């Protein structure tokens, strides 16, 4: 966990009161909507189809049980009893009343939660691997660096009025769970040949209308230099943003237009001016942040406790364990993913009741800690293996033990046309139908790892470009149609998917996906060849043929 200091707390309370005053002035007519909009966006408040939407940050995806209870309370007290976990370690509430927002923010501030860096053209919530600090073979806890960047960029003028929004993600493991290659800046913590810790820096990733996979701009930047290096990138971006309208866009466009070499050269020049400035982190500053992350006092526990041996006879438990339980750095412990993708449910939603139960289970089994991942699932990061059977039973009771993590029904989806004012088409009902088609978890298990991502418009909030199967809602003569891509991925081998053919109407999407999956099962060279690898080996053609032969 991370312990906020008094300064952070004072800042949060001051901001809530400032916003309370702004809301009051808006409601009395003293502020126009034009004047107010930028203020509400700085506090995570959007307008959606039916109501205001309130986006709250969960920095680097780490929550305490107390914080999760506060989110449950807000869901119940100010919203309709649930929240939606997003792909960027935020949670959204969909029915908040403007007049009550300051109270909701004040309640969250009590537990150190806020909505800064969740919207507007500024630096967004710096995201991280949800297994940070517990993943085996991690170089170092990446949240230390997320937090250093968060502190440096929060309310900093250089980062608060950018040409567009700006997103950074950090990972410290070989397997990238933070999708760093689709962020404006992606940082991969690793050690160089001299054993020093630093970052591979990637820039220019992003999805939306013009998707790009980020490119490496510098293979190694020492940890102490990361603030000055990021600032150098931002300065180059900001300069172009001001000079020429074309570049008043995302950094990915700038990197693409200039080319990574030229962009890198400009950053390097800028960095030479900055690198030995006050931005250089000294060991004490790094140590100070490091010391505020606390880790549980793990017991020395057996690798294979009796409880687990016994439970292994229950095929339902085993099925869940095989896809929801992951290795931990401490012997005798596991990381447990809680699927927020029940069959027939909206991906990423959790009810207030579920949040309260998870908070209690976190207290009992995970040292009071919960994690939020970009796949719109939660995790309990420190579960003793002996507790797994009991935890499973408790989760199952409240619908949180769907054994589909990383399988075809573990779908990432944006809110789409049911909620979103920018949408072309619905996302959630498509996801729900797909989870019903693949409701048999044993069959899904045989299909193996397969990520489906759905966005209701080109803004790509559901990361459709990097879904193994990506589904994008478009409009055709006032009707909902969907473009289908295959072969995308968001991990360390990130790639954009390829369109398989003309868009298909709403009613046919689930059939098309089933066809694609059937084609894969027929084409894979062994049950071990993942969908994504079959697509890579064969290209889209055989899938296209299968889907369009009868359409």
């Amino acid at each position, binding site marked *: 966990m991370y312990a906020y200091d008094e300064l952070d707390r004072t800042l949060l309370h001051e901001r809530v009161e400032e916003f309370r005053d702004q809301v009051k002035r808006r409601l009395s007519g003293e502020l126009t909507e034009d004047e107010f909009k930028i203020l509400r966006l700085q506090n995570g408040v959007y307008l959606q189809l*039916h109501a205001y939407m309130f986006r709250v940050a969960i920095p680097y995806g780490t929550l305490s049980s107390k914080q999760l209870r506060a989110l449950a309370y807000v869901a119940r007290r100010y919203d309709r009893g649930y929240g939606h976990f997003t792909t960027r370690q935020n949670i959204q509430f969909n029915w908040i009343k403007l007049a009550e927002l300051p109270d909701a923010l004040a309640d969250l501030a009590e537990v150190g939660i806020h909505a800064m860096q969740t919207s507007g053209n500024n630096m967004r919530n710096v995201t991280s691997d949800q297994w940070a600090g517990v993943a085996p073979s991690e170089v170092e806890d990446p949240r230390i660096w997320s937090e250093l960047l968060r502190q440096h960029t929060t309310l900093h003028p250089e980062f608060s009025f950018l040409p567009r929004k700006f997103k950074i993600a950090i990972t410290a493991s070989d397997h990238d769970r933070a999708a760093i290659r689709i962020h404006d800046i992606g940082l991969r913590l690793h050690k160089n040949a001299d054993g020093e810790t630093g970052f591979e820096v990637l820039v220019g990733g992003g999805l939306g209308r013009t998707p790009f996979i980020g490119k490496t701009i510098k293979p190694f930047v020492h940890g102490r230099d990361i603030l000055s290096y990021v600032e150098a990138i931002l300065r180059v971006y900001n300069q172009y943003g001001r000079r020429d309208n074309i570049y008043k866009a995302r950094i990915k466009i700038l990197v693409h237009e200039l080319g990574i070499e030229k962009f890198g050269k400009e950053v390097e020049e800028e960095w030479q001016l900055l690198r030995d400035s006050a931005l250089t982190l000294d060991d004490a500053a790094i140590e100070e942040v490091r010391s505020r992350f606390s880790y549980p006092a793990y017991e020395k526990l057996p690798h294979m406790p009796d409880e687990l041996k016994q439970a292994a006879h229950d095929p339902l438990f085993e099925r869940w364990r095989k896809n929801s339980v992951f290795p931990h750095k401490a012997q005798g412990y596991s990381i447990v993913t809680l699927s927020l993708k029940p069959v027939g449910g909206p991906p990423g939603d959790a009810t207030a009741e579920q949040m309260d139960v998870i908070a209690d289970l976190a207290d009992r089994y995970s040292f009071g800690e919960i994690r939020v991942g970009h796949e719109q699932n939660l995790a309990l990061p420190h579960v003793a293996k002996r507790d797994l059977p009991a935890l499973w039973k408790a989760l199952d009771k409240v619908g949180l033990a769907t054994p589909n993590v990383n399988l075809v029904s573990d779908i990432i989806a944006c809110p789409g*046309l049911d909620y979103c004012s920018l949408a072309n088409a619905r996302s*959630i009902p498509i996801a729900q139908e797909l989870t019903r088609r693949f409701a048999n978890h044993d069959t899904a298990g045989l299909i193996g790892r397969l990520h489906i991502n759905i966005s209701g418009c080109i803004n790509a909030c559901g990361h459709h470009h990097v879904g193994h199967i990506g589904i994008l809602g478009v409009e055709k003569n006032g009707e909902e149609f969907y473009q289908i891509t295959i072969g995308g991925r968001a991990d360390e081998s990130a790639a954009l998917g390829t369109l398989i053919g003309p868009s298909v109407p709403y009613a046919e999407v689930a059939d098309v996906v089933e066809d694609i999956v059937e084609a894969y099962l027929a084409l894979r060279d062994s049950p071990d060849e993942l969908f994504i690898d079959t697509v890579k080996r064969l290209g889209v053609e055989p899938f296209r043929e299968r889907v369009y032969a009868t359409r």
Partner: protein
Amino acid sequence: MTSPLEQKKIRITGPSVVTANRTHDGVVIYRTPQHGWSSRLADAAIVRTSDDARALLAEAVADDVGAIGSYIAPVEIKDNGEIAPGNLREHIRSEGLTIELPVPA
């Protein structure tokens, strides 16, 4: 549905209403013939020409305290005179989500 937020020129091709969200709670509202707002589509003022649409929108936009994001939305007038939303987006705004909420109201 192309988002009406991208609405640039005002040109309507059929019966339309002006809709927005209520400032203090975000609830969907419709401009009424009585120069006020209602949360019921049935109460909405119907316009049939681009000029009338422009005028109704101007009136709505002028109420910056009461409403946010006013725009013109198509409707369908049924044979019995009932006003129905003109597209799926407006249907969802007027009738609610096409899915069940995680927690029943």
